[in-house]
C-alpha cells in the first residue's frame, strides 16, 4: 500500500525530469529526494494527516478561548501529535500541519526575524518552531508549516529590512515600486521576480523552515485563485520560486497551494507543487467545524473539472476531512460518510481537522476504514461523475484490475434510492458488489445496484464485472441528420470525435438527435459526450415528451470532453433525443452513444 504503483507512468517521469532540470539550473546541490527514482517521492499518494485550521477557525465552545484562531498553540499541537500517533498513524496518517498564525500573537500581531521572515510567536510556541517539528518527528510523524504568499506588509519594515544571505538586498528590492499588494487577503506586497533579490527572499524562507525540519509547507492566498484574478494576484512566479527554493534546500518539502486555485493554471500548479486546494475553505467559521451547506457540499460540483489533474506528485486537495466527531463537525452520520467517500474517491489528501483526542467511535471508523483508505492511497485512479450532477448521482472509476470504484450519492435533503447501472459503467450482465464502508459482499447483482440513501448520504462499492462489454451505437451531434434550433451551431473541437461538436446551446438553443434506433422499448443508459467549462444544465427529452433537467458537471475547460450517462426511455424503432438549453446555458454536445441493448 505504501509504495506507488505508478512507477512506470511516462507522464510522471517527464514531470520529475522537469523538476530536476529546474533544480539543477538554480542551485548546485541536486535534490536528493528525486535522485535515482522515476516516481515522485513527494505526494506519490495523497498525503494523510491532521491540520490545525478547522479548530482554529471554529466558534465551537472552548476551542479558541483567547480569541479567534487562538487554538493554535504548542500545547495543542503536541496534544494532537500524540493523539495522531496513537490513533491514526498506523492507518497512514502522518502529517501534523500547523496552519496560519504561528508567527502571530492572539491579537494577530506578527513577529519577524531581522530578515523579515516569520518568527514563532513566543506566546503560542514558547519552544520555537524547530522544537515543535522535533517533537513531531520524535513520534515518527512529519511536520507541516504554513506561510502566506508574498512579502507580508508588516515584514517590509520601510523597505530597509535586509534579506538573509543576499548581499545588499533589502525588502525594497523584492517588491514592486508601487507596493502593489497580492494574495487572497491583500495582506502582502506582491513580489517582483524580475528583480534578482526576490528569489533570495523565498530561498531564505525555505532555508528557515527546512532548517527547522519541516516536511510540508502550505502556501496560502495563492492566485490566480483565493478569490482573486488579474496580474496583481498572479502568484505563479511565487510558486515557481518556492519550488526552486525548496529544491535548493535539499530537504523534501511537500508544497501545497491554497485556496480555490484557478483551474486555468492547473498545469502550473501541477508542475510546481504537490497539491492544490480546488475550492474555498471547507470550514464554516461557525459554531461547528464545518456544515453541510457551508461548504462541504460545494465539492461535488467543484471537483469534477479537476479530476484529470490528480496523480502521483500532485493531487486535488478538497480541504480538511472533518468527520471525526459528529457533534463538533456539525454533520449527520450520513453527511460524514459522504464527505469521506468523496474525499477518498477523488484522491484528495486525507487530513482531518478534528480534535483527535475526541474522536467518536463512528468518526474513528470512518477515518480508519482500511478498504476506503486503500482506495484513496492505492493505484486506483480518481473517480468522477458518470451521471449528471443531479441530486442523486453516481461517481465511478475503472481500476487497473478491471473492477470499478462506484460511489452513490444522494445530495437531496430527503432519503432517496440511487442506482448505478452497469450499462453506465460500460458492461452488461452481472457484477459482484463489495461494500467498502461495511466490509460486506452484497453478492452478484444483475444490471445495477440500487440502495436507499439517507439525505446527503452515500454508498461506496467496488464492482467486479462478470458480464460482457456493452456495445453502443454512436451518433455525432454534428451529423447533418440532426436538427439544430435557435442559436445552436456546429463548431470545431479538436478533442471531440469527428473533430466537431454542437455548441451555442443557450437561451432556447436546441439540438435534436434524430433517428436514434433501438431494437426494443425500454430504458437505455445513453452516454453523452460533452464539453463544458463550467457546470451547465440541459433539458433532455425523448420523442418530444417531458424533459428532465440534468446538470452536466464541468469538464474543466472548453477543450476537454467528458461523458455521463442518462437513462432515457426509448421506444422500439426510431427515436429523437433533444437537448434544450431552455432559458439558460447548456453544455456543448460532442456525441451520444446508445447501448445496443437496454
Amino acid at each position, binding site marked *: 500500500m505504501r509504495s506507488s504503483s505508478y512507477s512506470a507512468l511516462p507522464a510522471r517521469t517527464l514531470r520529475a525530469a522537469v523538476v530536476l532540470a529546474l533544480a539543477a539550473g538554480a542551485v548546485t546541490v541536486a535534490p536528493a529526494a528525486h535522485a535515482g527514482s522515476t516516481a515522485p517521492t513527494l505526494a506519490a499518494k495523497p498525503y494523510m494527516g491532521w491540520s490545525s485550521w478547522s479548530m482554529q477557525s471554529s466558534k465551537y465552545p472552548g476551542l479558541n478561548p483567547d480569541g479567534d484562531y487562538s487554538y493554535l498553540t504548542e500545547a495543542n499541537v503536541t496534544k494532537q501529535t500524540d493523539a495522531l500517533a496513537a490513533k491514526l498513524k498506523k492507518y497512514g496518517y502522518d502529517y501534523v500541519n500547523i496552519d496560519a498564525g504561528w508567527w502571530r500573537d492572539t491579537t494577530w500581531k506578527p513577529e519577524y526575524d531581522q530578515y523579515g521572515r516569520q518568527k514563532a510567536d513566543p506566546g503560542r510556541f514558547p519552544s520555537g518552531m524547530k522544537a515543535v517539528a522535533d517533537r513531531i518527528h520524535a513520534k515518527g510523524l512529519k511536520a507541516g508549516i504554513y506561510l502566506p504568499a508574498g512579502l507580508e506588509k508588516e515584514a517590509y519594515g520601510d523597505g530597509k529590512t535586509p534579506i538573509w544571505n543576499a548581499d545588499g538586498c533589502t525588502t525594497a528590492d523584492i517588491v514592486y515600486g508601487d507596493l502593489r499588494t497580492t494574495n487572497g487577503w491583500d495582506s502582502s506586497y506582491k513580489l517582483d521576480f524580475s528583480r534578482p533579490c526576490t528569489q533570495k527572499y523565498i530561498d531564505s524562507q525555505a532555508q528557515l523552515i527546512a532548517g527547522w525540519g519541516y516536511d510540508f509547507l502550505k502556501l496560502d492566498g495563492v492566485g490566480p485563485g483565493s478569490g482573486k484574478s488579474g496580474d496583481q494576484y498572479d502568484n505563479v512566479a511565487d510558486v515557481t520560486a518556492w519550488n526552486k527554493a525548496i529544491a535548493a534546500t535539499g530537504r523534501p518539502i511537500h508544497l501545497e497551494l491554497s485556496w480555490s486555485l484557478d483551474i486555468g493554471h492547473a498545469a502550473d500548479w501541477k508542475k510546481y507543487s504537490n497539491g492544490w486546494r480546488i475550492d474555498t475553505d471547507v470550514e464554516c467559521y461557525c459554531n461547528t467545524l464545518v456544515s453541510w451547506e457551508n461548504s462541504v457540499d460545494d465539492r461535488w460540483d467543484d471537483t469534477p473539472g479537476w479530476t484529470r489533474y490528480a496523480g502521483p506528485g500532485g493531487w486535488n486537495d478538497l480541504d480538511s476531512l472533518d468527520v471525526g466527531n459528529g457533534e463538533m463537525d456539525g454533520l449527520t452520520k450520513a453527511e460524514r460518510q459522504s464527505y469521506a467517500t468523496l474525499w477518498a474517491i477523488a484522491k484528495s489528501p486525507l487530513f482531518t481537522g478534528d480534535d483527535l483526542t475526541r474522536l467518536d467511535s463512528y468518526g474513528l471508523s470512518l477515518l480508519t476504514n482500511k478498504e476506503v483508505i486503500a482506495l484513496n492511497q492505492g493505484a486506483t485512479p480518481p473517480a468522477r461523475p458518470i451521471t449528471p450532477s443531479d441530486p442523486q448521482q453516481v461517481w465511478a472509476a475503472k481500476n487497473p484490475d478491471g473492477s470499478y470504484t462506484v460511489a452513490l450519492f444522494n445530495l437531496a*435533503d430527503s*432519503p*432517496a434510492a440511487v442506482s448505478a447501472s452497469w450499462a453506465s459503467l460500460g458492461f452488461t450482465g452481472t457484477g459482484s458488489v463489495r*461494500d467498502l464502508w*461495511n466490509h*460486506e459482499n*452484497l453478492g452478484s447483482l444483475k444490471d445495477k445496484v*440500487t*440502495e436507499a*440513501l439517507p439525505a446527503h448520504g452515500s454508498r461506496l462499492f467496488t464492482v467486479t464485472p462478470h458480464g460482457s462489454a456493452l456495445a453502443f451505437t454512436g451518433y455525432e451531434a454534428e451529423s447533418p441528420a440532426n436538427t439544430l434550433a435557435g442559436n445552436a451551431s456546429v463548431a470545431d473541437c479538436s478533442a471531440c470525435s469527428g473533430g466537431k461538436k454542437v455548441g451555442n446551446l443557450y437561451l432556447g438553443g436546441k439540438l435534436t438527435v434524430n433517428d436514434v434506433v433501438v431494437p426494443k422499448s425500454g430504458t437505455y443508459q445513453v452516454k453523452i459526450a460533452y464539453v463544458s467549462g463550467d457546470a451547465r444544465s440541459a433539458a433532455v427529452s425523448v420523442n418530444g415528451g417531458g424533459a428532465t433537467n440534468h446538470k452536466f458537471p464541468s469538464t474543466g475547460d472548453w477543450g476537454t470532453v467528458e461523458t455521463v450517462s442518462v437513462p432515457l426511455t426509448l421506444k422500439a424503432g426510431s427515436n429523437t433525443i433533444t437537448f434544450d438549453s431552455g432559458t439558460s446555458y447548456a453544455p456543448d454536445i460532442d456525441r451520444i452513444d446508445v447501448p445496443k441493448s437496454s
Partner: protein
Amino acid sequence: MNTDPARLLPRRDLLAATAATATGAALAALPAFTASAAPERPANAPRITSSSHDELWWQAPADDNSMIEQGLPVGNGRLGALASNDPGHEVLLVTDATMWTGGLNDTLDADGQFPYDRDHFGSLTLLARLTVDIPDHDLGAVSRYRRTLDLARGVVTTSYVRSGVTYQRQLFASRPDDVIVLHLTQSGTGRYTGTVTLEGTHGEGAGVSFGAAFANGLEYGAAVTAHGTGGRVTVSGSHISFAGCKDLTVVVSGGTNYAPDAAQGYRDPSLDPRRLARSKVTDAAAHSADTLLRTHVTDHHALFGQFGLSLGTSTAQQRSLDTWERLRARARDGAPDPELEAAYVQFGRYLMISGSRGSLPLGLQGLWLDGNDPDWMGDYHTDINIQMNYWMADRAALSACFDALTDYCVAQVPSWTDLTRRLFNDPRNRYRNSRGKNAGWTLAISTNPYGGGGWWWHPAGNAWLCNSLWEHYEFTRSRAHLEKIYPLLKGACEFWEARLLTTTLPGGSKEVLIADSDWSPEQGPRDAKGITYAQELVWALFGNYCVASAELKRDGGYAETISGLRKKLYLPQVSPKTGWLEEWMSPDNLGETTHRHLSPLVGLFPGDRIRPDGSTPSEVVDGATTLLTARGMNSFGWANAWRSLCWARLKNADNAYQLIVTNLRPSVNGGNGTAPNLFDIYETRPGRGIFQIDANFGTPAAVTEMLLYSRPGHLELLPALPDAWAASGSLTGAPARGGFVVDLRWQNGRPTEARIRSVGGRTTTVAFGGSSRTVTVAPGGSVTIKDFAR
C-alpha cells in the same frame, strides 16, 4: 317571519332542544376514544392476499425532515401515524383526530368575524412521537431496502438485508384492537437491539405512557408496550430497551377525552386517556402479532374489498418501477399508466378507511401531520375542502366512512345554532342579515370540533354541508341517515328563510329572492348580493329539504313554504359580456379569471342543476362550459380535481383526464403535484409545499365520475371515458345515487356488461352514449345488461 319556536327559549334550553331534535344518534355515537368490547377474532377466515396492483412500493425510507412527503400513513379511522420506515430509526408521528386545541371561540373580532388562531379557534396537533432505534441497522449499513404499502390489507412492510440477514417489519393501525402495531421479524440469525421511545410532542417528555391536558381542558394520553422473543425487553427509565431479540412487537395507543357532545362541552369527564391507552396496549399485547394482524386485515379488507377498479393494463416496464419512479415516468414519458392511475384511486380509499371511522371526519390533512402546527390548523374548511374529502366516500363504496362527517355535523349543530343566534347579526358582521331577522344555523369558513368557527362567517356553508349530507342519503337510501340529518336541513332552511332578500330584477317586474351580502369563495367583492354560489346551494338545499320532508312525512306545511321560496330564488344568468355563467349578479368579471375555486359552478358539480342532457337550457350549459374553460387547466390539487369533476359532468373526457394526470405529476421541491408517498402537495410559494388531503379524495372522485354518472332515477355509463382507459376496464361495487350499486365492464370504449344491484332503489334509466333503457329492480335484487348499442 320566524317559525322556530325554540327562539323564545333561553339559551340553555335551546341547546337542549336542538340536541334533542338532532336525534339521540349524536349522543349515542361513541366518543372518539373509548373502551370497547373485545374484538371479534377471525378464527378460520381465509388468508387475505392482495394483488400487486394494490401495492405501492418504494426503495428509500423517509426521515424526520421529509415525513409529510415520504412518511407512509396508517390509521384506524381515529388513531393515525406517519411512519418513516427507516431501518435504524423508525419514527411514527402519532395523531388522534380529536387532538385539538381551542374552543367555542365565541368572542368575535372587531370586524364581527372569528379569531383564527391556535389558541382560541385551535388546531389539530400531534399526539405523540414514537421512535424505535436500532443503531446497528443504520440506513448506511443495510442493503436491498424496500417498503411497501399494501392498500388492500392496510399494512406497511419494510424489508432490508443487514450482514446477510433479511429483516422485515410490519406496521398497521387496527380498528378492532384500537392500537398501532409494529412487528419486527427476521429470517435467520439476526437479532434486534435498541430502544423504543414514546414522547409527547407538547413538552410531556418521554415515558412508556404519558398523560396531560391542554389549556382548553382537553385531556390526552398515550402508552406503549413491547415484547419480544429470544432476548430481553426491559423498561429502563423513560425508554423500553430490547437486546438480542429474534423478533419484537411494539404496540402503541392513545387518545383524548373528547366527546362529540355540545351539552357536555365536548368532553367526557369520566375518561382517563392515559389509563385507557395503557389498558388498550396491554390488552392488545396479550395477543400474538399475527392474531392482531389477522384481525386488522379482516376488518380493513371488509371495506377495501367492496370496490374494484381496473383502468387497463400497464406495461412490464411500468410495473418494474417503484411508485416514485413510476410517477416520474408517467409525467416524463406521457404514456398512460392505467394501473398506477387506478392505484391512486385505491390509495384515496386507503386514506379514507384509515382516517374516517368512528371519530371526527377528515380535515385538511386528515390524520397525518409532520408537526404540531399544521397549515390552516388542519381544520375543516367548509367552502370546498371538507365537502371534497367526502365526494369519494359513497362513489368508491366507503359509505361507512361518510358517517364521521354526518356525526360531526350533528354534534356541532347545537353550537353552530347557538353561535348563529347570538353572533351572526352582530352589527359589525358585514355578512349579517340586513333585514335583521335571524334563525336556524350557519357557520364559518373554518370550523373546529368544539362548535367553534374560525376566519369569516360563511352563510352558504350550511347549505353546502347539508347538500353533502343529502347526497349520502341519495346514495344509500338510509332512513336512519335521513332522520339524523333532517334537523340540520330544516335549520339551514330556517336560516335562509330569514336571510333571503326580495328584489326586482332591473328592467322587469318579477320579484326574486337573493342572498344577502356575501363573498364568493374566496375572491371578489365581499358585499355582493345574490352570489351564484349561495343561490345554487340554497336552491339545492330547498329542493332536498322538500324531498326529505315528504319522505319522512314531517313538517309538510313548512316544506310548502320552502318550496314557495325556492320557486322565487334567483338563478344565475350568462353574462352577455364574457359569455360566462355569472359568479356575481353582474356581467363583469369581478375576480380572478383562473381563480382556484369554482364556486359559480357549484350547480354543475357537486350539484347537478346544470346538465348537458337537454334538460338545462343550452345557454346555461354553454355559459358554464365557457366559464370552466376560462378557469383553465393548470391549477393545483383540489382545484384541478374539482375542474376534472366538472369536465366529467360535461362529458369532456380529455379535459377530465388531463387534470387527473396533472395532479399525478411528481411534486418536486414543494411544487404542486404528488409527493413520493402520494400525498397531494399544494405549492403556496416557491419551495414551500403543503400537504392538503382533499385532492387525494377529489381526484379519485373524478375518476369514478368519469366512469359512472348517477342521480336518482338515472344512471349513465362511461360518460367521460378517456382514450387512456378505453381499451378495457372494470368498475365493481360502485354506488349510484338513487340506491343502486353498479358493476361495470367495458371494452373498446363500450360497456360489455353492467350489473345494477338495488340497495333501496327500484327504477332507473341506464344510459350509454345516445341510448337509454329503464330497468326495475327489487331492493336486494339485481339486473345485468349486456347488449349496449351505440
